């Protein structure tokens, strides 16, 4: 029986109640500040910058915008500039300089409907190659943008004419281990997961996990793709081992049923790709660790390589509130520090201890 003291502990460090609906919260890289994105009750968007000081979150700046803001990322900006890319309810993509947030650095009408999810790669020293932003929207399209190219996306993945459009709920970059390779993974509301290869401009793999996909994430964006976690409605998440792709069977996977409600987010620890946290619709967080199998691939009856999935262990769980935790972000600077926000209009800063021995 493992003693409870040796397991990682999830500690609530700061809790801040807000007066608006907060959709996303992100750490500003190389600082003790975080940004909260959301919308006021009067229908306008807002982002607030808080600083963690003396056990308190101090409001540094509040900026109001015309349209409610749904999601944001720092992934495509350099470490010195730290520009934030946001997607809003109207389908616009803006890139803001947080020091001068009146006018965006880059703006484009990305989609016809709300931008559900955004991700960036190539900035912050993660991934070689050009910085790019990918957005997924309710209009069923996934578009890749380069901040140096005005108005038009670099790549557009959309359903064929005549096919029904399914909402794209989540997007993630991965496989960006040199300056030519990149992959985008998109999850849709009917359970489709599609992996697009941006080097060959083709669909590399697709599958359906029967429930709407709420969040996908690669364990690390800037390595040869290793693992992909996809979370869905009805409390299930799947871990795919993406090192070995079988021509017909695709990737090996395991699935785990955890929270009793939708799993809204999954985030891998930036300092250890085998530890990840899932945030659930019942306001709880589960911390998991993936164990690799003894052999990661084997030969099947036809002689082709097929992957072997490992196993997932629950390290710790914590119930924060009764409302869903919609966003979660690990700090890239301090291991174990994370900020999460929920639909109870609260943003929390958590510390997870003992991640080194896990």
């Amino acid at each position: 029986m493992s003693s409870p003291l040796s397991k990682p502990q999830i500690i609530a460090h700061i809790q801040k109640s807000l007066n608006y609906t907060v959709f996303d919260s992100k750490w500003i890289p190389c600082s003790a500040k975080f940004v909260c994105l959301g919308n006021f009750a009067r229908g306008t968007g807002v982002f607030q910058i808080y600083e963690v000081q003396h056990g308190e979150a101090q409001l540094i700046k509040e900026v109001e915008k015309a349209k409610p803001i749904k999601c944001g990322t720092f992934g495509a900006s350099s470490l010195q500039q730290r520009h934030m890319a946001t997607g809003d309810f109207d389908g616009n993509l803006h890139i803001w300089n947080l020091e001068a947030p009146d006018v965006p650095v880059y703006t484009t009408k990305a989609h016809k409907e709300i931008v559900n999810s955004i991700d960036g790669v190539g900035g912050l020293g993660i991934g070689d190659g050009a910085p790019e932003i990918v957005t997924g929207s309710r209009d069923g399209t996934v578009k890749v943008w380069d901040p140096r190219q005005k108005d038009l996306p670099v790549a557009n993945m959309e359903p064929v004419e005549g096919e029904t459009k399914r909402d794209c709920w989540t997007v993630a970059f991965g496989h960006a281990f040199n300056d030519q390779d990149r992959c985008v993974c998109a999850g849709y509301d009917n359970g489709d997961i599609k992996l697009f290869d941006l080097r060959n401009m083709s669909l590399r793999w697709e599958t359906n996990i029967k429930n709407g996909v709420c969040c996908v994430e690669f364990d690390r964006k800037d390595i040869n793709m290793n693992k992909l976690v996809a979370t869905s409605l009805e409390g299930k998440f799947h871990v795919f081992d993406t090192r070995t792709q079988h021509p017909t069977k695709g990737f090996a996977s395991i699935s785990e049923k955890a929270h009793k409600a939708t799993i809204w987010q999954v985030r891998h620890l930036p300092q250890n790709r085998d530890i990840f946290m899932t945030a659930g619709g019942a306001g709880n967080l589960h911390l998991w660790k993936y164990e690799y199998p003894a052999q990661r691939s084997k030969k099947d009856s036809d002689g082709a390589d097929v992957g072997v999935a490992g196993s997932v262990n629950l390290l710790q769980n914590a119930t924060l509130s009764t409302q869903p935790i919609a966003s979660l972000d690990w700090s890239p600077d301090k291991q174990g520090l994370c900020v999460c926000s929920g639909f109870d209009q609260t943003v929390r800063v958590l510390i997870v201890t003992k991640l080194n021995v896990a």
Partner: protein
Amino acid sequence: FTANDKISAAGFSTKVPVEHLDYDFIEKCKDVKYLEKILRILRSGEEGIYPHLIKFCERHLEKLNPNSRALRKENPVATEANFSKDDVFLLQTSLPKQTRNPSKRVVPRDYQEWDKFNVEEECGKVDGSMQRNDPPAQLNSGHLSIRREVDASLLSHQEKLLLANREKDKGNEAFRANDYEEAVAYYSRSLSIFPTVNAYNNRAQAEIRLEHWHNAMTDCLQVLELEPRNKKALLRRATVYYHMGKFQMASEDLRTVLQEEPNNPAAMQLLSKIEKKMSDCPPEQQSKGKKILIEEMEEDLCCSKEEQEEQRGETQLSVYLISRLTHRLRRERK
């Protein structure tokens, strides 16, 4: 036990008879799924509320299957009240501090401390008995196209440190997943950005796993040039010597380590292995005496360390051959 089997055979799959909600039955039951079913019924309170019986059932289930889903508990989030004052102080002071000037970055002195912490843990895992002999097969042999050199000329010192650390972390992760080639590639990238002792040490370990003895030796020597008393490098060099057959030099390195840390388990283990090997081959003893003589002469002539080492290797081999020949001649004469 037989009663349990009979009942499941008879198809009572949905109902658990009341007789089974009993201490004796639960203790004797070895079927995990059935125990989980019993636990569910007890928790739901259909047959009454028996908290002590529930706890007993949970304990028994934990003994049989500690990873069972039925044992997962919803924990409330911990707050600072749950910890002692010292722990709370540690937590608060270890949070990232904001410098007054937002355009400048925080001085990353902390990163180097985390650096060392990480590698020690790594060493503990590696020096333990976690030997994974299965080779990891990859359809994605993309590690071959990972560029080993990163152009970091335009970055400031702090950025270089940050990037180098990140690449080293990637190497550590690949190492843990047994992708040693990939690990070496990432460590090489880290070293091309900013050479650090830990990255060299880790790369040496990965090369040892791949059995590239000469590469491992070069890396160990690099570390020892930067830090002559680095214990891990000495240990790794001893391992390389052992596999190359140079037992004398391996045992010298190990003795140096044991002088500083007398209870080092890895060093003691390797030393005992070497001593066993040395005692198993007595003809080596004679050639050892001769080997030392030749070495002294060579050192005057050669200038570079590596050349000397190669020469020593060759002379050792030739001396060994000579001693074997003389041995055979002596036997034939007899």
